[in-house]
Structure formats: C-alpha cells, structure tokens
C-alpha cells in the first residue's frame, strides 16, 4: 500500500518537475545555437510532449487497429475482408449495430429536444438555478453509479410480490402489472437509452440555456405582441436562432451514442438483445480476438468520420472569425 501511495505522490510532484527540467535543459541546449535556430526549434519543445502522447496513444494505435482488422485472431496471417464479412453476417454484431442506431436516433433526439424544452420552460421561472441544478445533478455521477441507481428504478418482482422497484411500484398503484424492464425485449433498449438521456440532458440544457439567454428578449416580446403564441415563438424564432448550438449538442450526443459502453455493460452486459458495438469490441478484446475486434473498431471509426469532418470544418470557420 505504502509504495503505491509513494508512486502516486512521486508522479504528482515528479511530472511537473520533469517538465520544468525538460524546459530548462532544452533552453540550455538552445542557448548554444543561433537566435534564428532557437526561434525555429523552441516551439516544438513546448508542443512535443502533448503531440507525442497523442501520436503514441491515438494516431498510431488507430492505424494499427485498421491493420489488425485485416488479420486473423492472433495477428499472424492476412485474412482479407473475413473479419468484416463476419461483422456484417453475425447476428450478434448486426443486432448491436441496430441498437446503436436506436441510441443514435432516440438518445440524441430526446437529449437535444428535451434539453431545449427544459431550458425554455425553466427560463420562465424564478427558481431557475435550483431547477437547473436538479436536472444537471446526474452529470457528475458515473455511468456505473447511474446504472445502480436505475437498477433500483427498474427492479422487478414477479406479479403478486411487493414491487420494490420505483417504476413498477408506480405503475402498480395505477393498476398495471409489473414489467421486467431490463429483460423484456420491447422495454429493455428504451430503458437503457433512458438512463443515458437522464445523465446527458443536463449537459444539453446548460449549453442551450446559455445561448437562449443571448437571444434578445425584445425580439421575443415583439413576436408575442404581433400575436405569436408560445409554440410559434419556440418553433419560428428560438429554434432557428439556436440552430448552431443545437448542432454542437447533437454532434456531441451522436458521438456519445456511438461509443456508449458503460451503461449497457453494467446494467445488462449486452444480454437480452441490448448489446452495442463498443461492448462487442470489448468482448473481442477480452477474448484476445484482435482481428474481429479491430473490424468492430474500424466500423466505429467509419461511423464517426462524418462528425470528424464536421468538427474540423466548424473549427476552421471559428478560426476565420477569430
């Protein structure tokens, strides 16, 4: 135990010291060169640590995964497209892909629209900060803890027994029979997706709310005086003006939906037809099946490429404004 704490303390103190020493040493070395050379080399000294981390842990492994996806289980033989053929013919992976599509549509849709509606409604009350805090609260909660929270919400006992799960108790008092939310194949995917919605809506709400405050209230008042009802104000004025923000939030949510892992892993471990591709990849990795795992990774990468290009384009636009 002690040695591990020492390692951690060492890292906390040591890393900044190492970086400081690195800057000091390179400055000493640079001092021996001409001013021109110094000015040319020095910037690299500052960005090299970050760039090497990104290269070692993101760029090279991504390229390596692409290579692995064309090789067999132990990466010893080239197998052409076999791993991809497996991916698109295996019922488990196909089902995972379908579930990710459900996540993509419903998770993103509900988070963005829910976030917008909540921001607009909360904007009209005096205890806005308090109300927002409530919706925002799940954000710092880990997916692991959130899954345990919802395991209790969705808990199911056979009919006739006391329902200790909150949701089944509620529908029980309304006269319905209990539902095995996480097992029943019509309810389990929506149930998992709702856990995601519950954790992410606060994020959408905060971002959207900030942009909402930037819309001039005179503009909204003018529309109301002209006879627009609240729905029209929301649809014809607020939504178009917030479109850039909504796009940013939607992009983030699409990426989250494509990568979703924790909630599914903890609540159902992918059983009962709830599997998703990120968990499929993890399962292959745990089985040391690098070829098929790599193919799952590449499918995931291809799915995010449009978003990657969108992100780069948006970044370039921002840079032009700067």
């Amino acid at each position, binding site marked *: 135990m002690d040695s591990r704490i020492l390692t951690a303390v060492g890292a906390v103190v040591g890393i900044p010291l190492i970086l400081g020493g690195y800057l000091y040493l390179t400055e000493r070395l640079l001092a021996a060169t001409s001013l021109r050379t110094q000015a040319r080399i020095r*910037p690299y000294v500052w*960005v090299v640590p*970050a760039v090497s981390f990104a290269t070692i842990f*993101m760029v090279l492994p991504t390229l390596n995964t692409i290579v692995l996806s064309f090789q067999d289980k132990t990466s010893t033989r080239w197998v052409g497209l076999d791993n991809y053929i497996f991916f698109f013919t295996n019922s488990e992976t196909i089902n995972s892909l379908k579930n990710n599509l459900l996540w993509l549509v419903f998770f993103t849709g509900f988070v963005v629209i829910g976030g917008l509606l909540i921001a607009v409604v909360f904007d009209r009350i005096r205890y806005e900060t308090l109300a927002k805090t409530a919706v925002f609260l799940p954000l710092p*909660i880990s997916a692991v803890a959130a899954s*345990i*929270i919802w395991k209790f919400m969705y808990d199911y006992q056979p009919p006739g027994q006391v329902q200790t799960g909150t949701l089944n108790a509620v529908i029980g008092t309304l006269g319905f029979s209990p539902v095995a939310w996480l097992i029943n194949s019509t309810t389990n995917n929506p149930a998992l997706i709702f856990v995601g919605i519950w954790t992410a809506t606060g*994020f959408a709400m905060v971002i959207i709310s900030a942009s909402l405050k930037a819309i001039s209230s005179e503009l909204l008042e003018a529309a109301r005086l002209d006879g627009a009802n609240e729905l029209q104000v929301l649809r014809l004025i607020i939504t178009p003006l917030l479109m850039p923000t909504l796009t940013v939030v939607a992009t983030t949510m699409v990426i989250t939906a494509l990568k979703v892992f924790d909630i599914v*892993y903890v609540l159902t471990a992918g059983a009962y037809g709830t599997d998703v591709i990120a968990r499929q990849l993890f399962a292959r990795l745990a089985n040391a099946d690098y070829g098929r795992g*790599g193919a799952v990774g590449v499918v995931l990468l291809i799915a995010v490429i449009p978003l990657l290009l969108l992100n780069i384009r948006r970044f370039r636009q921002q840079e032009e404004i700067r």
Partner: protein
Amino acid sequence: MTEVAVAESRPRAFAPAEIARSIRRLPLHLTVWVVMAIWLVPTLGLIVNSFRSVQDMGHAGWWTTLFPPHGLTLDSYERVLSTPNVATSLVNSLLITIPATVIQVTIATMAGYGFAWMKFRGRDFFFLVIVGLMVVPIQMTLIPVLRLFAATGLAGSFVAVWLAHTGYGLPFQVYLLRNAIGGLPREVFESAEIDGASHVQRFWQIAVPMSVPAIASLVIFVFIGVWNDLLVALTFMGSSPNRPLTVVITGLVTSLGGGWQFLTAAAVLQMALPLAVFLFLQRYFVRGISSGAVKG
C-alpha cells in the same frame, strides 16, 4: 452561465390580479416540478436505500423509509467496506485520478501556450489533427495500446492508466487551453516580449496566472472524468489489485446476481466525491462541461 435570471421587481401583494396570475402559471410550475422529480427521485432513492438493511430493501420500496419506523442503518456501508477489494479500490481511485489529472493538465497547458503564442511550421496541421482526434473513439485504440502495455510489462499498473488517460484526454485539453490562452490580450504578450521576457517567463508569469479559471475548470472536468472512468481501467487493469472503485463495483454487480442490493452504499461512496465537487464548485464545473461541448 447558471446565474439566476434577473427577477423583475414587483410588489409582493396578494392582489386579485396576483392570485389570478399564480393560478394561470400553475401548469408551468407543475411541469417544472415533474421534471425536477424525474431527475432527482432516482438518486434520492439510491441514497435512501443505502441507509437501509438489505432485508428491508427486499421487502418494501425505499419510499416506505420516509415514514416511521425509518429503520435507518449503516449496515450496507459496513458490509461494502469489508467486502474484499472495495476499500482498497477507493484509495486506488484517488491514486489513479490525482496523478492522471496533474500529468494531463500540465502537459496540456504547455502545449496550449505553444499552439497559442508560438509560430512554427506545421502548427496548423498538428492542431487540425488534434481537433480531429477529439472525435476518434478511444475504443479504436484499445487493442494496440493494451498490447503495448502487455509488451512493456505495464499492464495493470498505475503508470499504464495514467499514461492512457493522458493520451486520450490531451487532444481535448490542448484544444481547450489553446483557445483559453490564445484568447488572452495580445498586447500583454507583445509588451512582455519587448521587455525581454523569455517564453518561460511569459508562460509562467502571464499565461498561467491569467488562465487560472480555465485551468481550474479543466482540472475539475478531468478529475471527475478520470474518477468516473470504467472503460480505460477495465481494459488496462482487468483484475489487477490496482483497479479503481468503478471496476470493482461493476465486477460485484455482475457476479453477485441476487444479493447486489448492498452495493447502493458502494455507489454512494463512488459518487460522493464528484457530487461534492459539483455542488461546491458548480460554476467551474459548468464552465468545464460547456467548454467540452465538442469533446468526443
């Protein structure tokens, strides 16, 4: 960002008009309360349950405890802390999170300064790659990085997770800090340069002090992100004795099957720190979260 909307000042009288207005606004308030309940009740239920005995949890819902006899007990906490690995993994979570946060933010601040205030060949290209990497799912890298750690004997160690978190977190952090540090007034840096201040001095005496709010938001954001991480630790630590609380809890959820109820206490222990950070440093946290709008 979360400041209270300026409340319009009007007399607090119970005039008929005032009452009529309250009635008209009742549906609005009801909607707000329902939304708040949906977002609060699940967490409340977990916290209440964590103070009940496992038998009680099996016999009646958590809401029955709100009425006497309450039957509150710390049994679940005692049981969870005496479960093998739980207490150790709680400490592990700290030993993983604090160094990982320090390493990432230090390196990112340096690079952020470099990208913001230094000119060099390839700068725009490198930065564009960083912007692109923010979107690449880390799943894409897990297999090669795991093999790298296995080959170097680092798999299962703290160092492996520190390094992995740093690699995965840096693109976003460099992006964020480059924007924050680059947004500082140009004149300050130019006059410092004219006065003969070196880049180290400009970094340490201008860039860092002036971007403390941005750095603080980032520290909180990264800290909570690493503390809550499951995937990275699960992949690179597996069943190592160094694994954090999230991995241990997840293992217990899947292995216990029927008797998982006392894990409420474990979940509360796991979320206590992020929630405390959130409640006390809400402003920084919200800022960190909202600047993370493009994070992949």
